[in-house]
């Protein structure tokens, strides 16, 4: 599929972070740019599930944030077709002083759930997250695992055209991870494009047909998931 039919099209993308450093010689500080992504070009077609692999600091999370429109490229262009949701960490913006249910209802409206579907939306998440009576307790008192369940349940219930997932499946207990995988598979089946950044090669193999390997911000290999995993394994062994 060409650029026109692509869900995400990345052309010659480079990205620099700017760090403010103060040393003995530069007491007023200097702004130092450092490259995080370097001349990446990719096309991800609608309906594809892509695993983004690479060591820590390879640029996986930065690439996802860039596709999500959260950070500014230094060079190049990204074109996305459809609504993009980034599941990074476990919190889509929950408010600590509201209960889980209140958060789902208020944030649900703000994320575009129609009022008549809101109760059903909340019930689906309640059932998935399985928080019991904690669903009506203050979100600020939740454990990291509970927050993860609620956040993952919330975002995967949104059904965006492009879902970007950054290591979130690592949250919660074993039972939850199984449930999350089932839900994610269902989501992938029902909707558009998914890009998952993960260190779990088993998960990548199970969910994705295509892999992209990054190293120091550069594209190493883009192709069949098995080939990419082999390459990644050889790099890390």
């Amino acid at each position, binding site marked *: 599929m060409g650029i026109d039919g692509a869900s995400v099209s990345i052309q010659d993308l480079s990205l620099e972070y700017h760090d403010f450093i103060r040393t003995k010689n530069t007491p007023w500080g200097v702004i130092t740019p450092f490259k995080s992504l370097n001349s990446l070009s990719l096309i991800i077609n609608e309906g594809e599930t892509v695993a983004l692999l690479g060591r820590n600091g390879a640029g996986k999370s930065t690439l996802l944030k860039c596709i*999500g*429109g959260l950070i500014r490229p230094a*060079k190049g262009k990204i*074109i996305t077709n459809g609504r993009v949701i980034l599941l990074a960490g476990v919190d*889509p*913006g929950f408010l600590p*002083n509201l209960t889980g249910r209140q958060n789902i209802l208020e944030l649900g409206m*703000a994320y575009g759930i129609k009022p008549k579907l809101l109760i059903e939306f909340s019930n689906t998440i309640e059932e998935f997250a399985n928080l019991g009576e904690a669903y009506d307790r203050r979100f600020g008192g939740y454990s990291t695992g509970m927050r993860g369940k609620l956040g993952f349940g919330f975002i995967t219930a949104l059904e965006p055209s492009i879902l970007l997932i950054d290591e979130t499946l690592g949250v919660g207990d074993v039972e939850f991870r199984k449930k999350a995988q089932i839900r994610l598979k269902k989501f992938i089946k029902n909707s558009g494009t998914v890009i998952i950044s993960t260190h779990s090669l088993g998960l990548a193999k199970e969910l994705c047909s295509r892999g992209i390997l990054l190293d120091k911000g550069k594209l190493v290999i883009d192709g069949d998931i098995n080939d990419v995993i082999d390459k990644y394994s050889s790099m890390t062994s």
Partner: protein
Amino acid sequence: MKRIIDNSSLYEEGKLSLDEISIDRERVKFILKKRLRNISGKKRLGILWMIMDPVVTSMIYLFVLTILKGRTDPESLFIGISTYQVLQNSLKSGCMSITDLTGGFKAERIRTKTILLASLRYRFVDTLATTCGVLGVLFLVYNIPLLGIIFLIIISQIIGFIFEGIGLSFSLTMRRFPDLFNILNLFLRLMFFAGPVMYPMVATEGLHYQINLYNPFTYFVEFARYMAELDSIITAIDIEMASLIVIICAITSIFGYYRVDRFRWRMTTWA
């Protein structure tokens, strides 16, 4: 919706659908409620604190000044302190806004227009809450005419919107040089004591008077005092200079509102 992201900006092609407009409206409401909740937090009296704060502050200074000077002008002081608090809140809010230009949405980038609209609504509510307690005192206790009350509401709102925009135009610099925020605090403290906040301009003279003519707040607060039929220098000022200062403020403010999307985009890669 097709979205194009490059170094200069993030822009969308095509017109927004009715659904998208409706979502944006919900987001404005969400951000507004979130900001108001941040202020009220777990406090039992919630937003009432915003109303009570300038009234209590004015009463404290009224007490102190009465002890020190023997007499003071309470109506003038109430107007000065409430308008000053509006200026302080809006200027600081504008300067600090860039530290969180996500609107609290961590899973999706929302339009800058939505965040801006929420900020403007918040500014309106915050200014109204900050002034309404003082308005009640002025109207009920000091019998300030209704026209003066109406003008105080309008002038406070103008101060709020203008200084929020001025704050926005400095927000990027403030983010890069956080020391400037301390300088701003010192400047605001100086303005509180040396500017016509606790006393009208007629109480100043010489260099003190001359310096205050360069302070944009002077023109807003003195106009409010004039409309409340209190001592004011508004009829005696150089209208050209006053217009110039107010126009510079307005232009700086418009610049801030206009550039906020670009500021927001630039700071995303600041580690």
